């Protein structure tokens, strides 16, 4: 059907073909050997790496502040364990037994900073009250505490005096917290694995208390088996260690996805090729490519992070879809009477260059996202690029060699031919879309979709709109815990911290303290800021406390001695100051982390500091989880246009080069652009935020989505150049490659569709986005592209037959 035997390729590919096909055994042995070696690397060296800093745009102004002060104010590594009584009343012996157990377990746990554990039962939680001759202080829960009604009533009063309602005790007295800091290094100086700490907390605290704990306690006393109906206490945990732990756990489900994807792909390739023996070849080649890619990670010293997990899936899908293009071509040659080896050789020559070009187009998608200055993304771009290079090796070298050994049985030909007959009827029916009427309708529909999509897509938000930790699903256990804790306690989880760096110690400067105080107050007045905590605010309370608690003294004192007094007992562990008192964070607790909220608050900070320059002090944005979001949102905003522009420019350039035809480039470009617009609309409709993890997917979707157009139009162009009308050219193209194109789209979609079910929100978002882009780009290529061709392509005069061959080859050679 397509070009005669021996017509494709040039001298170079012919030499390469001889080289490869005369050393088939050697090549298979080499691949096998390297694969085994890589497998050993992978098994021994591959690790999940949920490193936090890798996800930060470190060059951003805010993140430089973040990194600079991370060691001192990285106190983000706190875990909060909330015990909440089922019946809403914490003043029961059962609850206090559970709280004591939780406190004791946390206190002896490896990786926990023992001295900074806080709960009602720790001696660092004290109450202070002003009495006539001074102050009286004591532990909220006495060392000799026994859960008698009187003692519980006294604890209740002490809690009120200590002012810990909302902090360590639920606002409605339904529960209490254990607060702990996870160490960076243990006593022996080894780094503490936060995932392991979270694991221990789950096992030794949550399971022990919310699990069978209550029953055991009840059974022990009387010696009779008392049945307790459910535990009386629920346990909720939040904190960075828990986030990392839950993300790593969620990432593990990828193993299931990988198996499902593999099975689905084998099934589907089998269906497509009508032969399991044939189907196995591209799948094996792609698995080899994935093993190499993962091995390369180990060799390069990279870990695999939850985002990078996507890469093997993409590599596998790309490998299979390109492999099958090859197999289809070999199959055709076999049907034309060649033996498998000759067919494989022919295919090799024919498809070497177009395949390389299509793969290079994939590469473009990966390379443009290198522009995002976030390590996770850049590693993903690099490893994916390496992966594509590996696919070029496996699909262009290993696959033809393997396929040359495959024997096509007698029934095979029949099965395939039956199917071709069916398909050809479909293609004929489909080609009606190139008639004037239908094509105009399709173009009009596309235009409407484009406009509607554009309008809807405007609603796509930068960053995250959902409550809780955006990496995890809103209904994940962590985010549920987070909601419970923020509801029961006065604890905010969306924190933007402005770091004030001063030349002189702020603690002894009335001017600096008042400046920070003023700043804190102005920020308190910004919509979306729920609460502000900073050193001057606490110092004012302290000085009022020293003045018998009188509210009229709640002001920064001008007297240097009193000023010193007001800050003197505020410890660095509060996170309100450093040891020299020349770094003073101002913590802004926000109502949420929607991008509008973040932008409004950040703008207010910038406005204040430009209107109120403070001599000897710099108010620097920003740390805290919202500080990170602010930086990433700004980076996404900054890089969004350049990346999309870059990927489209590259795609157009590649089309021009390949087709040597402006029309061709336009035909490929318009469906791609439409699908990108629709992708934004999808994000707005489904609630996917444009962020560090999803922006690259739009670029990848374009880079990989262009394949269909290139494969389709390169064939179609041949027929057009032979002088065939558009409809005829399209129908013939579809006969040759239509099945492969649809197949490719579905294969790619299978590669990512399982991700939709990931427990990790961003993986699910990526799954939705890529599945959509892969499928809809495919539909765009086979429906919109020919419809546009009807109107844009001017029929060429039939050229001499010799020149009509395969333009892409010529293009690539240039």
């Amino acid at each position: 059907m397509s070009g005669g035997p021996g017509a494709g390729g040039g001298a170079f590919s012919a030499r390469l073909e001889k080289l490869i096909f005369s050393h088939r055994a050697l090549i298979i042995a080499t691949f096998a050997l390297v694969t085994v070696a890589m497998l050993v690397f992978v098994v021994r060296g591959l690790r999940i790496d949920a490193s936090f800093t890798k996800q930060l745009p470190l060059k951003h102004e805010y993140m430089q502040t973040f990194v600079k002060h991370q060691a001192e104010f990285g106190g983000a590594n706190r875990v909060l364990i909330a015990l909440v009584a089922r019946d809403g009343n914490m003043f029961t012996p059962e609850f206090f037994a559970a709280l004591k157990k939780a406190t004791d377990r946390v206190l002896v746990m490896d990786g926990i900073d023992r001295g900074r554990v806080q709960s009602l039962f720790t001696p660092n939680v004290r109450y202070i009250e002003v009495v006539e001759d001074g102050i009286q202080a004591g532990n909220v829960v006495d060392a000799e505490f026994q859960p008698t009604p009187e003692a519980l009533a006294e604890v209740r009063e002490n809690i009120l005096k200590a002012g810990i309602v909302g902090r360590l005790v639920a606002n409605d007295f339904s529960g209490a917290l254990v607060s702990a800091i996870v160490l960076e290094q243990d006593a022996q100086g080894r780094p503490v694995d936060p995932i392991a700490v979270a694991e221990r907390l789950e096992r030794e605290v949550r399971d022990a208390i919310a699990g069978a704990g209550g029953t055991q306690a009840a059974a022990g006393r009387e010696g009779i088996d008392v049945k307790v109906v459910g535990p009386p206490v629920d346990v909720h945990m939040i904190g960075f260690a828990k986030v990392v732990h839950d993300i790593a756990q969620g990432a593990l489900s990828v193993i299931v996805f990988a198996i499902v994807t593999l099975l689905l792909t084998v099934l589907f390739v089998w269906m497509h090729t009508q032969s399991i023996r044939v189907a196995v070849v591209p799948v094996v080649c792609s698995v080899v490519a994935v093993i190499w890619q993962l091995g390369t990670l180990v060799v390069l010293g990279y870990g695999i992070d939850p985002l990078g997990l996507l890469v093997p899936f993409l590599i596998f899908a790309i490998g299979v879809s390109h492999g099958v293009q090859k197999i289809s071509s070999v199959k055709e040659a076999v049907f034309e009477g060649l033996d498998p080896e000759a067919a494989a050789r022919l295919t090799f020559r024919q498809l070497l260059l177009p395949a390389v070009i299509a793969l290079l187009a994939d590469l473009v998608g990966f390379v443009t996202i290198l522009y995002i200055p976030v390590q996770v993304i850049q590693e993903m771009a690099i490893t994916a690029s390496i992966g594509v290079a590996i696919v070029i090796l496996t699909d262009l070298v290993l696959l033809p060699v393997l396929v040359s050994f495959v024997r096509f049985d007698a029934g095979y030909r029949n099965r395939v031919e039956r199917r071709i007959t069916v398909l050809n009827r479909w293609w004929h029916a489909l080609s009606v879309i190139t008639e004037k009427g239908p094509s105009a309708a399709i173009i009009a529909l596309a235009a409407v979709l484009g406009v509607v999509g554009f309008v809807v897509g405007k609603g796509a938000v930068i960053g995250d709109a959902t409550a809780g930790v955006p990496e995890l699903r809103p209904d994940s256990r962590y985010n549920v815990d987070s909601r419970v804790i923020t509801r029961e306690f006065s604890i905010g989880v969306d924190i933007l911290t402005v770091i004030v760096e001063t030349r002189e110690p702020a603690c002894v400067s009335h001017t600096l303290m008042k400046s920070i105080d003023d700043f804190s107050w102005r920020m308190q007045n910004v919509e979306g800021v729920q609460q502000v905590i900073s050193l001057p605010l606490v110092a004012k309370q302290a000085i009022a406390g020293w003045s018998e608690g009188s509210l009229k003294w709640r002001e920064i004192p001008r007297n240097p001695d009193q000023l010193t007094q007001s800050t003197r007992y505020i410890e660095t562990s509060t996170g309100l100051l450093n040891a020299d008192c020349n770094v003073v964070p101002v913590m802004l607790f926000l109502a949420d982390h929607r991008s509008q909220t973040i932008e409004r608050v950040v703008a207010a900070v910038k406005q204040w500091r430009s209107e109120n320059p403070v001599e000897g002090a710099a108010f620097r944005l920003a740390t805290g989880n919202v500080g990170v979001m602010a930086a990433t949102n700004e980076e996404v905003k900054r890089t969004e246009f350049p990346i999309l522009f870059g990927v489209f420019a590259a795609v157009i350039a590649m089309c021009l080069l390949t087709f040597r035809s402006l029309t061709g480039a336009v035909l490929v470009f318009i469906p791609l652009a439409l699908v990108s617009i629709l992708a934004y609309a999808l994000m707005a409709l489904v609630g996917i935020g444009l962020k560090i993890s999803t922006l690259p997917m739009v670029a990848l979707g374009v880079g990989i989505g262009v394949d269909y157009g290139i494969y389709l139009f390169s064939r179609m162009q041949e027929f057009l150049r032979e002088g065939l009308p558009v409809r005829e050219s399209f129908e013939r193209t579809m006969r040759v490659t239509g099945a492969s194109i649809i197949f490719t789209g579905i294969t790619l979609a299978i590669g990512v569709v399982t991700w939709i079910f990931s427990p990790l929100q961003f993986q699910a978002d990526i799954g939705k986005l890529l599945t959509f882009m892969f499928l809809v780009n495919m539909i765009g290529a086979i429906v919109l592209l020919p419809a546009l061709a009807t109107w844009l392509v001017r029929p060429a005069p039939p050229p001499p037959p010799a020149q009509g061959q395969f333009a892409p080859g010529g293009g690539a050679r240039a």
Partner: protein
Amino acid sequence: MGPGPGRLTAGARTGLARLRVPAARARGGSAGLTAAFASAMALAQAPQPASPPAAPSPASGAPAVGADLLDRPALPAPAAVHSLLLDVARAGERLVAVGERGHVLLSDDAGRSWRQARTVPSRTMLTAVAFADARQGWAVGHDEIILHTADGGETWQRQHWAPDAQQPLLDVWFADASRGIAIGAYKSYFTTLDGGEHWSRQAFEPAPLPRSGPADPDAEFAPDYHLNAIAAAGARLWIAAEAGQLYRSDDAGTSWRTLPSPYAGSFFGLLPLSNDSLLAFGLRGNLFRSDDGGMNWRKLESGTTAMLTDGEVLPDGRLALVGLSGTVLLSGDRGATWSLRQQADRRGLSAALPDGAGELVAVGEDGARRIALDGEAGSAAGARASGAATGTGGAR
């Protein structure tokens, strides 16, 4: 995190010379904290840099501190109504509340809605406000600031300001639109006879109690107590002060005498009931009554341990007291018994006024709020219930 507390010691020591407060008692080994408090109290009594002597300071004569952050007009702020407010006064029908950051809030609907005054020339904390009539009013605060309004609180001008004195004024009282007294920390005592055109600093030297025993050797070193509150009833003026000090003047402030005190802790408020009767209250729910002009005092059971800050006689004759920890006390029997109505959020209250319609307008840590006062029987029952529920009711 060791270096925190220790590093500033040298500077803080300077105030220790006049250590006055006896060792506080503490349970559970809080010696360090107790000592810290003691030294803090000493600091509070540290000798102050010499203030300008009684020289009157007209508005323009305030020391030029140039870039002083507080010497700037107060800013409008949406959250001002929830900022720390310390006093509230009536200017005709209008309520005027003052507080931190130079906030002055006005309400023309009995505290249902508030707006900020148009211009306040300072961001200093204002601690008290008093009006002579519907238009003439004065507010005092930290840095010895005294502000004046002649338009019912809309705009304010500065009459006195002495940031270098480093001490706050804590209360202000005006007999009429001319004669007024402002009092504050370290026995500071200012008077005016011309509506604040001229303020003069007076030495506050009340006649001591008649000695009944041998001379008290400490009497010579009587510290400069903070004068916390001033109140008038009939021809008499009263001042409540730190460390159990109570004073009375029968000649509109020309001379003062020390009254025998029933209590060693600080008084923060006074509620005169007649020429001879008044309540005095302060730290830890301590509440006393005198019916003979302050010569003899009787302790009343307030039922709370929270600091009491202000009191009012309601239009229906009931008495109301407010205090820290959201304390609201009501008495229907002229103070014999009290019922506690604790605010659920337990935010401290600093001052209150009856709104004339059975509710209280109170200001404090969380700004201004209205507090409903139900019928007396209901409120007593409610108070008992809430006292039981929170475990703070009843004497300890």
